[in-house]
């Protein structure tokens, strides 16, 4: 059992939790992920490490409520426990020896982009951040990005926060202004990553993306997380989760991400109905 030592509501659908997991905290690095199970019958949910505190032995996760498991997780409070928490899994982000990097985050993907930006900043890299949300209500980690970024461009779909437009508009402007990047690191919805990669390919800027496909065990056993990268089959859990974005077959990944959509929607509705009954 793993204790929830802190819970913070970041916006109506996104929550941050610090989980007591000293072994994981000792080894976790930016870019890696964990898998948790909320309770004994729960599914295995992969989530990227948002932060860690080696001294206190805690690992932070930031999650959006999208399915039955995240709905259940979101109903737990500080001092309560989750059944399982395993990691760190996957390869860490390469943050060494970079002069200038543009970190692009979209929506809850910013939760994963932030530790990367912070890691780069701490290594003395000049970080430019482009963060985008649908609207003002969904913004997370604004001040955190400000702290570690030499430049932080804020975008929203409806113009209610920062500038109106897409992260690709902002990234294009930065590149056109003459900012030269060792690489772009982009984390967000598949569609956003696909278009960011199309853009950076035009300018020939190396781009790293973090993939979050369907996964069961997370240790290389099930093969559910496979992607086509550079024409070859790769497993996100052991070969990734980060890949060269110019090599990833995004159209295939987008299709594969929908395999269990109908099931997940139904499951979440079932869980929501249970909580509603409890309230009534």
């Amino acid at each position, binding site marked *: 059992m793993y204790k929830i030592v802190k819970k913070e509501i970041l916006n109506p659908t996104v929550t941050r939790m610090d989980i007591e997991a000293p*072994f*994981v905290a*000792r*080894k976790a690095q930016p870019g890696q992920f964990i898998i948790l*199970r909320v309770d004994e*019958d*729960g*599914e*295995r949910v992969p989530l990227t490490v948002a932060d860690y505190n080696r001294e206190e032995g805690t690992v932070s996760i930031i999650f959006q409520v999208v399915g*039955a*498991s995240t709905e259940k997780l979101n109903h737990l409070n500080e001092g309560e426990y989750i*059944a*399982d*928490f*395993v*990691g*760190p*899994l996957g390869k860490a982000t390469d943050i060494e020896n970079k002069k200038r990097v543009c970190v692009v985050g979209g929506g809850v993907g910013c939760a994963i982009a932030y530790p990367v930006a912070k890691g780069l900043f701490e290594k003395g890299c000049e970080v430019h951040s482009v963060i985008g949300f649908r609207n003002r209500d969904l913004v997370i980690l604004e001040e955190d990005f400000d702290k570690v970024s030499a430049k932080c461009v804020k975008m929203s779909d409806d113009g209610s926060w920062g500038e109106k437009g897409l992260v690709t508009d902002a990234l294009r402007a930065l590149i056109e202004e003459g900012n030269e990047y060792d690489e772009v690191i982009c984390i967000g919805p598949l569609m956003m990553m696909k278009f960011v990669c199309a853009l950076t390919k035009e300018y020939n800027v190396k781009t790293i993306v973090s993939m979050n496909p369907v996964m*069961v*065990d997370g*240790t*290389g*056993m*099930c*093969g*559910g997380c*496979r*992607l*086509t990268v550079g024409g070859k*089959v790769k*497993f996100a859990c*052991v070969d990734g989760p980060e890949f060269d974005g110019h090599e990833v077959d995004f159209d*295939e990944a987008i*299709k*594969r991400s*929908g*395999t*269990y959509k109908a*099931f*997940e929607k139904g*499951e979440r509705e079932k869980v929501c109905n249970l909580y509603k009954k409890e309230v009534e």
Partner: protein
Amino acid sequence: MPNMRLTKNPMPSQKADVRNKNFKEVALGYTEEMAIDEAQRCLNCKNKPCVEGCPVKIHIPEFIACVAKGDFAAAYEIISRSSSLPAVCGRVCPQESQCESKCVRGIKGEAVGIGRLERFVADWHNAQENVTVNKPESNGHKVAIIGSGPSGLTCAGDLAKKGYEVTVFEALHVAGGVLVYGIPEFRLPKVIVQKEIDTLKALGVKIETNMVIGKVLSIDELMREYGFEAVFIGSGAGLPRFMNIPGENLNGVFSANEFLTRINLMKAYKEGSHTPVYRAKKVCVVGGGNVAMDAARCAKRLGSDVTIVYRRTEAELPARREEVEHAMEEGIKFQMLTNPTEVLGDENGWVKGMLCQEMELGEPDEKGRRRPIPKEGAMCTLECDAVIMSIGTSPNPLIKSTTAGLEVNAHGGIIVNEDGLTSRDGVYAGGDAVTGAATVILAMGAGKTAASAIDEAIAKNAE
């Protein structure tokens, strides 16, 4: 006077058209009367050829003699001296190619049902209340086991019985390895696996779940910082293989590992499970091994129309004969001499069929199996909405890549000597991590060999 009937007592089983709709155990086990009758078929040969056929060298004629007398407790005691998992082995061992293949009674008639008797004895024992396990006194030496599958559990059990302080590190949230994620409930009920694990715990074995060694701790850390004097790697087979044909990443194409893990480990077969599993109308399972049979029989139980697609013929199927027969009885179709060349998809990226090359058998290969060769111009299309690839696995690179000096062969299997010792001092390995995908009992044999080598090495160092 032994019972000279030429045939084994048949195994009582659920009827095929009933069991192919549920996940309850297929074989129901002998009654006491059947067990005693079967045991009396044993001639108690002096040279005991059956023991030679057993990878863990169970004293077979001795335990059977006890069963014949109705002394089941003594029979269990004899088996458990050699095997840590008798209820498991009695169910999943390929006895027909091991102990029973050497049985003298098999020369004229059928061999003694050794596996069925082993299962009977273990189940009888597990059904007794107030069974006490004597926890041996600690000898103060610590051994770490990586992986809680059959090799790891066997190694752990043997060492614990000798007084070692054994900790088993398991990557998943539950112990048992392939016994819980791979082999389906209807062949090996999970309560039986749990019982065997509980017995090991009572012997003092500690099991730490959610520990991916190679990530959260390295082998070097286990030895240097945590004081483990020896480590046994039983991390299993690992990454599923695919055919590398077009369309393999379409929605509806799964590895057998993923399909079985969802159903077994994550309990997707149960009503109300939170784990999704794709219930296809028509499933093609590619491959002919035991895992392919398990996947096919699971798919059948989820209501699919199932076809096994294999590039050789029925005679070359690598699965146990019993598994093939069970699958056939349950209504699974076999499309032999057929090799997929492309998975076909619809406009939304879902599987709609498979394009296949028809094959014929050519010259025998180095193993003596006739090689399948394409029949020129003969292609066929199989209609299906799911494909389960069951063509083997390759070893997981996690431990190799984080353990300096650990040598592996060209296939990624860890290299060991006859004692299970790797190229690293104090580090042993066994099971699928060494051999690639094989059987439960071979893994157990390897765990046993390593346990005795570890015991010798530590005793020697202590002198």
